[in-house]
């Protein structure tokens, strides 16, 4: 009924006398519209009732149709003339559905209003992120000036800032966790005046010595040096492990039992912190993977994507347009280059292939050699720094920061050299990018591992066995080894931030000023800076891994990291808008989100290994910290276990026993098989539907050919059909 009237609407309100082609187009449109309108109500529960009762539904559908404006007006007039046939209590269902939808959209708008740095991220990406109904009008004047100044930077740069925002929130929430369970109880108990328990008597007094506070007069600049290296007044504070007590408070006041076990809280908070970070990473990875799967992988249909969706219609200004066109040209060139290289590689003679592969193997060994050389330098610098840590003054500060300096230099120079090596290797462009990224990741994370390994060697005295005989760790150099490790991580974090700010002030701003105001060949060649996404992201991952490694030894490190990342966000934003030109080579944002999270997961695993090793293998310090009276850090768990009430203890034993874990394992295997089967079925159905589409297209072609064949046979029949 409505569709017939819409067809009539086509007839009387079309514009003048439509040509043959136009009428054909309208007919095709109307046939498509009829199928669309038939399909849409089928998806909802009751068709005709819903369409007639809620006046919004058909108008919503009409807005989605492709009729010109005049036709839509006519169709709507016709609809409004119809009297609703039935009006009963079924409208409650629609009202509820409408209310839920409205509520969800209101909540989404409200949350978006509060989202951290939402406007900045919009400006950077040049696009609205999630929900944009109210934002554009308010932003309009500022937006246009910004776009005319800079042009948007694209999805790759935006994904860096989104990743940074995720890390800020993760660190802040982890800090709240640690503050709630460890920091605040410690502060409360210390202020109440509860003293730490002394450790067991069967250990020599040598091991119990710990004097972190400096003796005698202190030079005034020592304050500043201590702030930077975590020694002196900062060492014996809430910042580091050594300050926390091993108090196990059990009070039984009138009518209430209050007990708080600080060592247990410390250990469990650390474990939950790791688990929480893992869950956050996995959830985000799941979301990104879902997007990647629905778009079927970014490389599969790259040409058609670039041609049809590459152009940004919101691009304003001739400069931005030219830049966008060059960008598209460059992307197509990259893909064409890959094709050409593939064809070239296929046409190589055997001799050429052998030389190419042997050159690649040689260059691989050169790169590995460079990376190993960096590792040796880091190990040597760490040993040197630990040996000379008691030198006073600025030189002492330099020695304490030596490992950080060497790591930063290595992470800067070695990728540059590897880029030069990559020119000789002649991989296709996509493989070059992947290889460079892998090398950079290995360099960054394994260099941190080397630093930790060197520290561990020193603490467990691998070189001089006699130092560790008394206290099971090197008590002469490290009276409180956990605090030393925490200090090392603190120094790494601080140095990272200082280097970023120094680079911004000393390198990026001057470069831009020189390039802008002094035009000669050299400055033209160097040009303004580009915001290189992969190396910046690896810097973030490195910083986060340092924090994870140090969280057990320096509980306030997540807070310091939150502040550091917030400062970094604003610094990078300033440098992006003032110093950088929009990049010619864009970084693919869909696959990059998964890549960033995978590298972050790799860093998490490294930090987990360190934590497990510290908790399970190394003897805690006798002189400081919450675990001073335990053989190993994890021993606190069995001990507090024994204080649990009988019922809870039996329940936990049951969970740990085989009677529970084997059925649990079997059930989880069943679930996993179910999900694997479901995934394979979806994949098969997608392939089947695609084949069906192909067949439908072929059927259509066949039918068109048949019609063409039958046309000359019966002209009168066809004239009747065309009316």
């Amino acid at each position, binding site marked *: 009924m409505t569709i017939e009237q819409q067809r009539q609407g086509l007839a009387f309100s079309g514009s003048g006398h439509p040509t043959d082609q136009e009428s054909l187009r309208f007919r*095709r449109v109307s046939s498509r519209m009829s199928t669309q309108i038939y399909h849409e109500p089928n998806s909802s529960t009751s068709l005709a009732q819903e369409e007639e009762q809620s006046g919004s539904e058909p108008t919503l559908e009409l807005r989605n149709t492709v009729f010109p404006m005049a036709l839509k007006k006519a169709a709507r007039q016709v609809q409004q003339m119809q009297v609703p046939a039935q009006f009963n209590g079924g409208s409650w269902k629609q009202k509820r559905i409408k209310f839920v939808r409205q509520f969800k959209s209101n909540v989404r708008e409200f949350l978006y209003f509060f989202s951290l740095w939402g406007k900045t991220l919009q400006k950077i990406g040049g696009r609205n992120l999630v929900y944009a109904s109210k934002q554009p009008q308010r932003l309009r004047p500022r937006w246009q000036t910004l776009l005319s100044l800079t042009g948007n930077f694209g999805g790759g740069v935006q994904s860096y800032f989104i990743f940074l925002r995720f890390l800020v929130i993760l660190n802040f929430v982890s800090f709240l966790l640690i503050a709630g369970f460890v920091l605040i109880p410690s502060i409360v108990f210390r202020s109440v005046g509860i003293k730490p328990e002394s450790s067991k008597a069967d250990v020599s007094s040598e091991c119990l010595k710990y004097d972190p506070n400096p003796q005698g007069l202190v030079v005034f600049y020592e304050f500043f040096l201590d702030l930077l290296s975590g020694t002196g007044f900062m060492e014996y504070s809430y910042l580091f492990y050594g300050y926390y007590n091993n108090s196990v408070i059990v009070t039984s006041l009138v009518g209430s039992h209050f007990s708080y076990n600080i060592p247990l809280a410390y250990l469990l908070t650390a474990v939950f912190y790791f688990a929480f970070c893992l869950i956050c990473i996995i959830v985000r990875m799941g979301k990104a993977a879902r997007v990647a799967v629905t778009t079927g992988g970014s490389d599969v249909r790259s040409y058609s994507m670039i041609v049809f969706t590459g152009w940004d219609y919101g691009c304003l200004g001739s400069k931005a347009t030219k830049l966008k066109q060059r960008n598209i040209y460059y992307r197509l060139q990259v893909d064409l280059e890959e094709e050409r290289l593939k064809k070239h590689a296929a046409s190589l003679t055997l001799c050429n292939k052998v030389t190419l592969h042997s050159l690649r193997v040689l260059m691989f060994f050169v790169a590995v050699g460079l990376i190993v050389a960096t590792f040796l330098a880091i190990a040597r610098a760490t040993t040197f720094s630990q040996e000379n840590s008691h030198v006073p003054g600025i030189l002492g500060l330099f020695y304490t920061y030596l490992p950080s300096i060497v790591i930063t230099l290595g992470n800067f120079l070695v990728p540059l050299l590897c880029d030069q090596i990559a020119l000789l290797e002649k991989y296709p462009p996509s493989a070059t990018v992947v290889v460079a990224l892998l090398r950079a990741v290995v360099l960054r994370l394994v260099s941190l591992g080397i630093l930790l390994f060197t520290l561990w060697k020193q603490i467990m005295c691998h070189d001089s066995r006699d130092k560790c005989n008394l206290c099971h760790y090197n008590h002469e150099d490290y009276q409180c080894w956990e605090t030393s490790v925490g200090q090392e991580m603190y120094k790494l974090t601080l140095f990272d931030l200082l280097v970023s700010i120094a680079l911004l002030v000393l390198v990026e701003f001057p470069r831009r000023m020189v390039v802008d105001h002094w035009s000669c060949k050299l400055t033209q060649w160097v040009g303004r800076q580009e915001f290189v996404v992969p190396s910046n992201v690896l810097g973030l991952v490195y910083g986060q891994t340092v924090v994870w490694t140090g969280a057990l030894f320096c509980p306030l490190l997540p807070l310091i990291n939150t502040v550091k990342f917030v400062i970094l966000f604003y610094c990078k934003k300033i440098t992006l808008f003032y110093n950088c030109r929009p990049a010619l080579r864009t970084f693919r944002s869909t696959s990059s989100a998964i890549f960033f999270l995978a590298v972050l997961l790799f860093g998490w695993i490294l930090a987990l290994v360190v934590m497990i090793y510290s908790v399970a293998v190394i003897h805690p310090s006798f002189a400081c910290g919450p675990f001073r009276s335990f053989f190993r850090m994890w021993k606190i768990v069995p001990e507090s276990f024994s204080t649990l009430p009988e019922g809870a203890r039996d329940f936990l034993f049951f969970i740990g026993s085989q009677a529970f874990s084997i059925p649990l394992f079997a059930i989880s295997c069943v679930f996993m098989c179910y999900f694997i089967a479901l995934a394979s079925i979806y994949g098969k159905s997608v392939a089947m539907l695609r084949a069906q589409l192909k067949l439908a*297209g072929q059927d259509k072609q066949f039918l068109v050919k048949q019609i063409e064949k039958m046309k000359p046979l019966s002209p009168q029949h066809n004239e009747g059909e065309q009316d």
Partner: protein
Amino acid sequence: MDLCFRSLKAQTWGINKPSSQRSSSTHIRLFYRYRDLAPQLVPLDYTNHPDVKLPYELIGSMPELKDNPFRQRIAEVFSEDGEGNMTLDNFLDMFSVLSEMAPRDLKAYYAFKIYDFNNDDFICKSDLEKTLNKLTRNELTEDEVKMVCEKVIDEADLDNDGRLSLEDFQHMINRAPDFLSTFHIRI
């Protein structure tokens, strides 16, 4: 002032829902933009449905469109006469399809029509070549253009007839995550 316009709009576009109040202010804003292009041609009073068409040159000189290499095709697709001369209805249609509220299928349909230079309801090789040249300012060589066109048809053509129909195009657009955000003009 534009009370007549407001009342006319109230009849036709429906003001039952709260969201349409926002859209009615957008419509009024768009009407003023339309009028600013040629104040002497466009009357303030639309109750008698005056037949006013602005020529393509004025539409193409709008700041949102003037640097867009596809502006001519956009104007042709949305205009009634197919030449780019737009009435107010066509103008509103154009910006409503290119706004962020328009659904994906609608945008895909009009994008298809924009890229279909010869209006034969298929994107054939010559259409693709023209699209590519507009996208890259004629900087690709002939061979490169041919190679890219072949690749595009290979990737997107499902029914193997050597050209892209609307279904092929829509199927490909469904796989593009950022189509909705790139096919969008802010006004």
